[in-house]
């Protein structure tokens, strides 16, 4: 019983690190694929470049022989990359109010608009701030 409690406690302590997998940087996610799947890619996907569609498809197609570590890590890594891209794509929509009210002068310039948004996070709504964090800009 005690052992179960200890294990549950350790899992609870480590849970944040699992959640943070959602917020991997591109470099961390890409390194994860490279580190966990290098041999599997060499053995089964020779000729496939680091392309999310083709590489994922190849690793999935060869799941019977792909290592357990790679099978565990590549969906997580590609998912993290995709989530960050999606967050960046939808950022301006989720921060529309902020763009209209805090950054209206520069909103037509994507780079300046984004910079203005990041400079205005103290005045931004909670949802917009969440979107900024999901996009990896903070």
């Amino acid at each position: 019983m005690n052992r179960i409690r200890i294990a549950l406690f350790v899992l609870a302590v480590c849970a944040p690190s699992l959640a943070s997998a959602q917020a991997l940087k591109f470099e961390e996610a890409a390194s994860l694929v490279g580190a966990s799947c290098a041999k599997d890619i060499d053995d089964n996907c020779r000729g496939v470049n680091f392309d999310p569609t083709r590489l994922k498809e190849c690793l999935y197609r060869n799941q019977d022989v792909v290592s357990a570590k790679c099978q565990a890590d590549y969906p997580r890594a590609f998912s993290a990359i995709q989530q960050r891209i999606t967050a960046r794509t939808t950022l301006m929509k989720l921060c529309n109010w902020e763009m209209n009210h805090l950054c209206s002068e520069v909103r037509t310039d994507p780079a300046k608009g984004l910079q203005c948004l990041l400079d205005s996070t103290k005045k931004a709504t909670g949802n917009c701030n969440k979107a900024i964090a999901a996009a990896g800009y903070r």
Partner: protein
Amino acid sequence: MRLRTIGLLLGVLAIFAVPVVGRAQTAIPAAEIIDKLTAADDTAPDVDVAALKQQAVDRIKAKADAQQVKRPLIAPQLTKLTQVRFDIQFDPDSSLIRPGSYGMIGSLADALSDPKLQPFKFLIVDHTESGGRRDANLTLSQRRADSIRDVLVSTFKISGKRLVALGLGEEQLQDANKPAAPVNARAQIIAFGKPDVVEPKPAAPAAAAKKGAAPAKKKR
């Protein structure tokens, strides 16, 4: 009983203590890339990518500057621009990026996505060390530069309008005294002004890319 409990505890900890990210190759941190590249000013440098490609093809065709150690840089102006040099490992004679270099590409993607670098356009230049056929090396380096660009665009959704790929083969040796040194095979990313300032002209087809070109003998 207590020992078994400790063992269980250590076992569970060990699972989570393994670094989330293992690295086969040390990537340059995105922050370092951002710091270096933001030093560029907004003005577009005077670089005609299509002309540079043609110049490299013509020089090889004419068999000019055959001696590697005496070969002048084909694009000396590039060395003066704000840039970061980085290593990407490829399969031999191929534009396939080795898994060990995925992290480096990811780090580039992190940097290029940063708001500070978003106003800029970038030139991705690939080089090869000397060895094998010059024309094949030129073609190979162009394919490799294209490959880096393709991954940044397809995997990380960096806008293709911001990235221009240029292969210079062995025509721009960083260390001409050691033409076969790996340092000559490093790639560069060069801040290249704003996207609406410079638009690349369509490149002339490289003679070396014609059907029948012999594969490079070199490997890296």
